[in-house]
């Protein structure tokens, strides 16, 4: 059963290569379906691995397949090996499953795009890199995938590199921003890897569990904080989340696949994968929990006032990732993976629905110009509704169960974090329905635009419906008290801790109330136009300009980091490089030229002077032998 594991990499690689080599000769549909078929087949392989694991006894569900020794330097050995265990198979299923749906959706969405071969090549390449990331059994292999998905992300954010508008500036610059901010996180990852190697002597995940027992607490804290920096870069946490909103410059299916469902969850996956290390450091876990909690509140507050549909979803992604990081920080690894999975479904759904809107409005996503789309786009309307309900945590959609699992874990372990998360949950419910109501209800605000709106073709709506169904039923994966997913993951992350039933029920009750309250507020404000939510919000009015400017974080970063760096770079470019570096180099050349100018006077072509030089040498040699010898 596990013999087919190599196909996980071979299939997307073959798909990518076929498109790369033959793409320009093939019609659009063939290219799209080739890429999609490759990913669907990969999903089949992942499913086969899943059933293979299922057939094994619980305590043997960790299969390492070593293909070859990748590098051997002294006693530093890294195998090219994959690890098949419940965690990696879950991730592989999510990546290939959601990935396949988004590939199919893209066939419809990118139909009018000229560079479609390039698009599908990037997409297949992304799947390959993401599978490398999740399947590798060691840090170095994971890092290869980590950088691979970063590259794919960069290429796809800047896919329309030749476009520019007021929101993103040059689209290519948005890609650069993502890439550069991620480098900061990668720095943390690399240093953490060095430290792990030097202190534990292994980079293989399955060896961590035994190796960490000898680790000093300070070293464990340092390593975990550096890993957290890496996760913050990839999973868009404070302080490195700034790239994700700009990443929306890419095509919408890309936002769904990379910047909502899969790549950005790599940080969470990495922390869960290295949970043995994290158990060694209370400090690092608490830091992670607070960073996650603050990120979720912070991003949710910004999402409240955004007017671009994709930006709202982007900030909500940051916020939901914050929930996951908070959960892993509190040691709730199973619930974090549960939320990761459910989030992959409903956030991909929301993005694809937003893409469907974008498709209908020829690119307009400003919710102030939309409205009343319900009648013209019923499929998009209903699927978006399901996605928004799941995001808001309305019972019984998947988001409710997954978020509730996190909130209950927080309620039991850390009340302060729980309160922060409850506020964030309220904001989440409010902004998701704000986006929904403003976009789909009410009267059209832009009649001209509205006139051209049409429902998307079936190739786009069918993936939407599949994802909507998944968003509804994904809660079944891990119902409270049944905990299928937690038990499945138990071999990797340890058994689920028993939670007091009173706390569990209290948490569920509060979650239900909070989500419905948020829904109600949005409904009252944007559908019924009642005034009580405004009165309720009046004490917080002073926050509005702050929120609309996203807490001025970009401006602060610009002033504190980008500005000085640019000034320093400018100084180096204007003065240091031309004067000192080039000066030194040119000086060497000028010395050679000048000395050559001086010496070439000797070479005047008059043979007697040459003869004279020779004669001078002869006399000197004779004098040496006569007198000095």
């Amino acid at each position, binding site marked *: 059963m596990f013999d087919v594991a190599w196909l996980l990499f071979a299939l997307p690689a073959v798909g990518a290569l076929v498109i790369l080599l033959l793409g320009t000769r093939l019609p659009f549909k063939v290219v799209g379906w080739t890429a999609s078929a490759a990913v669907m087949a990969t999903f089949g392989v992942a499913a086969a691995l899943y059933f293979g694991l299922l057939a094994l006894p619980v305590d043997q569900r960790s299969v390492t397949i070593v293909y070859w020794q990748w590098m051997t330097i002294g006693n530093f050995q890294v195998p090219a090996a994959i690890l098949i265990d419940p965690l990696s198979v879950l991730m592989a299923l999510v990546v290939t499953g959601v990935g396949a749906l988004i590939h199919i959706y893209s066939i419809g969405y990118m139909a009018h795009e000229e560079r479609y071969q390039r698009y599908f090549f990037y997409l297949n390449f992304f799947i390959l890199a993401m599978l490398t990331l999740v399947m590798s059994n060691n840090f170095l292999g994971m890092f290869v995938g980590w950088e691979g998905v970063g590259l794919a992300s960069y290429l796809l954010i800047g896919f329309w590199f030749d476009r520019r508008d007021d929101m993103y500036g040059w689209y290519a610059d948005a890609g650069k921003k993502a890439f550069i901010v991620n480098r900061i996180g990668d720095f943390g990852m690399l240093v953490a890897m060095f430290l792990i190697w030097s202190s534990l002597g292994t980079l293989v995940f399955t060896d961590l569990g035994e190796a960490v027992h000898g680790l000093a607490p300070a070293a464990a804290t340092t390593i975990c904080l550096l890993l957290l920096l890496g996760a913050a870069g990839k999973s868009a946490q404070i302080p490195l989340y700034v790239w994700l909103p700009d990443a929306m410059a890419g095509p919408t299916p890309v936002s769904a696949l990379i910047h909502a469902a899969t790549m950005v969850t790599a940080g969470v996956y990495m922390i869960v994968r290295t949970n043995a290390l994290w158990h060694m450091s209370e400090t690092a876990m608490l830091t992670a929990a607070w960073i996650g909690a603050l990120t979720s509140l912070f991003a949710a507050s910004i999402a409240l006032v955004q007017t671009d549909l994709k930006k709202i979803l982007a900030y909500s992604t940051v916020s939901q990732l914050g929930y996951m990081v908070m959960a892993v920080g509190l040691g709730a690894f199973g619930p974090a993976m549960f939320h990761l999975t459910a989030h992959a479904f409903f956030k991909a759904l929301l993005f694809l629905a937003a893409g469907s809107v974008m498709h209908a409005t020829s690119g307009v996503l400003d919710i102030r110009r939309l409205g009343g789309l319900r009648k013209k786009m019923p499929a998009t309307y209903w699927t978006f509704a399901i996605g928004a309900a799941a995001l808001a945590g309305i019972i019984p959609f998947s988001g409710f169960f997954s978020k509730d699992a996190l909130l209950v874990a927080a309620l039991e372990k850390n009340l302060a974090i729980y309160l922060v998360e409850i506020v964030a949950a309220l904001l989440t419910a409010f902004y998701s329905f704000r986006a929904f109501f403003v976009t789909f209800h009410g009267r059209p605000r832009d009649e001209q635009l509205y006139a051209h709106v049409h429902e998307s073709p079936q190739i786009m709506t069918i993936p939407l419906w599949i994802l909507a169904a998944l968003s509804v039923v994904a809660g079944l994966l891990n119902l409270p008290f049944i905990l299928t997913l937690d038990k499945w993951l138990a071999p990797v992350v340890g058994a689920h801790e028993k939670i007091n039933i009173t706390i569990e029920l209290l948490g569920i009750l509060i979650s239900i109330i909070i989500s419905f309250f948020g829904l109600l507020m949005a409904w009252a404000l944007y559908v019924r136009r009642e005034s009580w939510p405004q009165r309720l919000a009046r004490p917080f009015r002073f926050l509005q300009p702050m929120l609309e400017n996203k807490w001025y974080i970009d401006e602060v970063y610009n002033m504190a980091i980008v500005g000085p760096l640019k000034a320093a770079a400018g100084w180096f470019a204007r003065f240091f490089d031309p004067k000192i570096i080039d000066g030194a180099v040119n000086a060497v050349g000028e010395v050679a030229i000048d000395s050559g100018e001086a010496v070439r006077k000797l070479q005047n072509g*008059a043979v*007697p*002077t040459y003869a*004279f030089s020779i*004669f001078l040498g002869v*006399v000197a040699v*004779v004098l040496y032998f*006569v*007198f000095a010898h």
Partner: protein
Amino acid sequence: MDFAMIFFILVGALSVGAAVGVVTAKVAVHSALFLLTHFVTLAILYITLDAQFLGAAQVIVYAGGIVILILFVLMLVGSENLDTRAGYRSWVPYAGLGLGAVLVAALGFAMLQTPLNPPVLPANLGGIPPVVGVYLYSQGILLVELVAVLLLVALLGALLLARRNPQEQDEGRGR
């Protein structure tokens, strides 16, 4: 002072005088004639050094071959006074003279430090032709071969250089 020494001084003085004449003569043909004298005096000195074969070769090759060749070329090129002084290297002759003096002084000093008196040899063991010939064609055979090749190459080289360019000849004919 024996006869041999007196003879050496006379011939040596003649040789040096001829050499100075080569360098100082105003007319190139006179230089060539001084050179001829010089070569002949050297041939005599070779014979006093028991190198009879080389003395003969000296007369044949230098006096009889090279000087004649130089005279031919002088006639071809024209022996008009070419010593129009160019100012920019006027210091070279004087510096050369100084250096020559230094060289002679240094070598003379070295020679006088260690007197070298030759062994007295039986008359037939010097450089008489039978001895040299046997030596050349036994131990020196490779040398002879190489010299032969060198002379052949020089012959061909001279031929190639002195020959007019065929294209130029054609153009000349065309004109």
